[in-house]
């Protein structure tokens, strides 16, 4: 490796860590729990499809579009992609997400699930849907 390689690697690593470390250190209020009233905003093709409260109880959300179906499950103050008929199944790999800003994406179906604080629920949609 030459000097420019090492320089490139270090710059990118520092930039990436600068984003990741604050996430690890983020305070408890960002974590899942009964007090935080987190919601998940589900958008299809850039348009809001549904906003669901993340509860401990299990809820199932069906997202059916002409591209296919996605089944989301809410439980334990988080949400996960349970099933989808997209070809790559990448969306199933995101697992159970519980923190604000975490997302699940299904590229083939243009489905995007993002967790937000309750305050930035339905009122704040214009902030991220252009």
């Amino acid at each position, binding site marked *: 490796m030459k000097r420019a390689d090492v320089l490139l690697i270090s710059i990118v690593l520092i*930039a990436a860590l600068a984003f990741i470390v604050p996430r690890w250190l983020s305070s408890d209020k960002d974590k899942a729990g009964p007090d935080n009233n987190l919601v998940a905003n589900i958008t299809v093709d850039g348009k809001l499809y549904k906003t669901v409260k993340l509860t401990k109880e299990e809820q199932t959300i069906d997202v059916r579009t002409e591209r296919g179906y996605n089944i989301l499950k809410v439980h334990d103050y988080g949400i996960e992609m349970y099933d989808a008929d997209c070809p*790559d199944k990448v969306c*199933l790999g995101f697992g159970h997400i519980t923190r604000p800003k975490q997302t699940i*994406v299904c590229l083939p179906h*243009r489905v995007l699930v993002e967790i937000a604080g309750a305050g930035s629920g339905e009122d704040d949609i214009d902030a991220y849907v252009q």
Partner: protein
Amino acid sequence: MPMSSSESATALKRTVIVAIFAAVAVVLSLLEAQIPLVGVGLMPGAKLGFANIMILTCIFFLRGRDAFVLVILKTLLTSFLLGTFSSLLFSLFGSLLSFVVMFLLVKWGGKKFSVIGISIAGGLAHNTGQLFAAAIVFKSTSIFYYLPVLLITGIVTGIVVGYAVRYLVASLSKISLFEEFLG
């Protein structure tokens, strides 16, 4: 313009090399798709980027336009074979950006960067390009949440790909088919 026989022989060799590289790149992509990366705790959708080995090697031996043809062929074929046609545009966007970055670095930064640095830059360009394409489609920037993780995995896979390219270029240089393309 009529070509002399040595010119047409060279053109034929280029075509053969691009075809072989495309075939190997597609096989590498298919193999890679069988490896469950999610299980190791990596971000879903992250790829090892083995096909990049062939593209970077091609940039070293052949002209930019040959490598460009290889990128298009590889992306089209893998998209058809893996049945993710809907994400074809995303792959194309990422692959082309990665190709442009690597090509420019080989052309102008070849003395400053080693193969490993160039392959890392290509991998990072691929990841960023795909996220940009996704952000445009979703009309949302929240997808960039995954950029830091992708950058780190991009560095690791870039190093692996870079070493592979170094050995591959050294080995192929001994084959007579590649002799006349050595710079």
